[in-house]
């Protein structure tokens, strides 16, 4: 973005009156940013506990976590894209369209309520779905890096077009007769806990480690911080961005798969409206919209905090007519708080 370069002279937070704190402190502050939601989560648990005795139970907390799983994969993808200095709004449509397209290619044309093409074997549904996700990411990535259209507006267009594609193929109906393999992950349990929890946990672990300690992961921060500098330092920025877009969309497709298992069918509205939550979670989790800052751990705490807020609100019995408002106000408050804990002035 144009003004980003201009501001590079005072990249820092030109809040007059700030200066680099002495050694050590600074690291601590940077860390603080990633952990700033931990006390908030603690507070939410406490409020929940006060509000209802049924809140602080293993069962409810597992449920809350499982409800996070699908969204968290999108947040993970979006956080990577944001750290690399771009955006992707179309993830919310990918959640729905990837499973629908995969099912359409696999389900036979006759016999069910939903007439697919049946051109591919049933076992291929899951890989197909992920592949479609990757393909969508490839398109977005190519447009962002080669044609160089602003990712925000392009992916906004993709959001509409992909949702339209899903509507067109499914006729707007939820698809119930999906191959069992598509349902497996979101449905089954491993070691007494939902498999989706294990899967997301593992993916986040890999993500956190990669972005924290591996060369390719670190390069996202360099690209988001100053793409031109990253390029002169020999980072293949376009290639990395392409891969990040593809990964994020693939994760969104995986989120779609978990959703299908979790709720039993490919819902016609699967993912619709999620992008608001995705951005809110990433930002209150400390990921900067200007790129170059944030961590996947922070993003994870963002998702969990948002889901806990909703859960606590349910237990607190906010009148139905007002709960969207309360939800919005709490997000706004979280933004203000995270503005000050991160100390980053945003333009």
């Amino acid at each position, binding site marked *: 973005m144009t003004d980003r370069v201009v501001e590079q002279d005072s990249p820092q937070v030109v809040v007059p009156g700030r200066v680099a704190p002495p050694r050590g402190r600074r690291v601590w502050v940077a860390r603080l940013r990633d952990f700033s939601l931990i006390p908030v989560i603690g507070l939410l648990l406490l409020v929940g506990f006060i509000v209802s005795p049924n809140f602080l139970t293993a069962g409810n907390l597992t449920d809350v976590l499982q409800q996070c799983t*699908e969204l968290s994969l999108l947040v993970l993808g979006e956080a990577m894209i944001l750290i690399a200095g771009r955006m992707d709004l179309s993830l919310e449509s990918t959640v729905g369209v990837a499973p629908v397209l995969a099912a359409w290619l696999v389900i036979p044309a006759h016999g069910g309520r939903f007439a697919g093409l049946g051109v591919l074997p049933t076992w291929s549904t899951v890989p197909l779905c992920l592949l479609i996700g990757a393909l969508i990411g490839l398109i977005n990535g190519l447009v962002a890096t080669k044609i160089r259209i602003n990712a925000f507006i392009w992916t906004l267009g993709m959001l509409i077009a992909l949702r339209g594609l899903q509507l067109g193929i499914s006729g707007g109906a939820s698809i119930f007769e999906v191959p069992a393999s598509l349902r497996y992950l979101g449905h089954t349990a491993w070691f007494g806990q939902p498999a989706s929890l294990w899967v997301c946990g593992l993916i986040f672990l890999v993500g956190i480690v990669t972005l924290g300690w591996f060369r390719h992961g670190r390069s996202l921060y360099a690209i988001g911080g100053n793409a031109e500098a990253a390029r002169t330092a020999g980072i293949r920025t376009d290639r990395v961005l392409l891969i990040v877009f593809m990964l994020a969309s693939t994760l969104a497709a995986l989120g779609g798969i978990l959703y299908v298992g979790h709720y039993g069918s490919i819902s016609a509205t699967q993912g619709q409206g999620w992008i608001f939550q995705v951005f809110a979670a990433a930002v209150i989790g400390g990921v900067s919209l200007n790129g170059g800052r944030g961590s996947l751990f922070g993003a994870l705490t963002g998702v969990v905090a948002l889901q806990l807020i909703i859960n606590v609100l349910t237990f607190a019995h906010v009148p139905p007519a007002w709960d969207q408002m309360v939800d919005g106000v709490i997000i706004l408050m979280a933004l203000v708080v995270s503005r000050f804990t991160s100390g980053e002035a945003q333009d």
Partner: protein
Amino acid sequence: NRGSSSGSSAASGGTGGGGGKVGIDQPRSDSDFWNSYSKYIESGISSTGIDALPRTNSQNQITQLAANVKSLVAQGAKAIIMAPQDTAAVATTLDELAGKNIPAISVDTRPDNGKVYMVVRADNKAYGQKACKFLGDKLQNKGTIVEFEGDLASINGRDRSEAFGDCMKQNYPGIKVLAEETQWKGDVASAKLQNDLNQGPVNGIYMQAGGVFLAPTIALLQQKNLLVPPTDPKHIFIVSNDGIPQEFAAIKAGQIDATVSQPADLYAKYALFYAKAALAGQKFNPGPTDHQSNIITIPNGLEDQLPAPLVTKDNVDDSSLWGNQVGK
């Protein structure tokens, strides 16, 4: 049955014997219809003395519905009233409830899969058919009808569209139907109607949701000087769907001709009735009921098909219509 379940109340689950809390989820808070429903539920709770948990709102999202049901169960609900807007994706939630022997009553929609104790809904196909018959007869099998469909992603909307379209094709082949998708949005409907009017005369309108389409349609027709009495050949016959007070007022004022009253009061009344019955362990059989409806068997339970009367100038003052009781 899910491997992972909310364990907190599994132990306390069991065959509901006589009493217990009822959990009620409201599907959305952004429509006239559902807000009326919500008011009837409220008054129904106090008049029947049902022990209801504070209601939740799933904002038209199945994920929210699933989460709400879990929290209601965690709070000790022994029966659940819901109105799943996504009839396919609710299956797992229903399975979970079945696993805990918690009866589920589904209002307005019929879940595709998963056990339900009772579906309480009006027959959406009948809505479409009634509107079709009314318009077809008035237009004497000729002319053009604009149909405001709802959202493709809405099963009730699809049911109405299908029934209306099939009926028109079979009984009134001389009538041309322009089906317009509107995503339940008044401005979209208005723009499309405007286009259709520009393409030639329109003789009838079927709108699938009065709450959304009534005002924009009347405003547009007024602007175009097309709001004329039925005696005028330019008159456009309008059938609406919902049965809200504003539609009744419009019928009385001669602005529209009929509406299909979607019984919000009966939805609430019988949802609570069946919840109570479920807690008492009552069983129902298919067949006609004492309240002019019919219980039919569906693959995953029973469905009580409530009557949905067609309201015209002749019966618009009938005080038994729910739309005439609002605000009284």
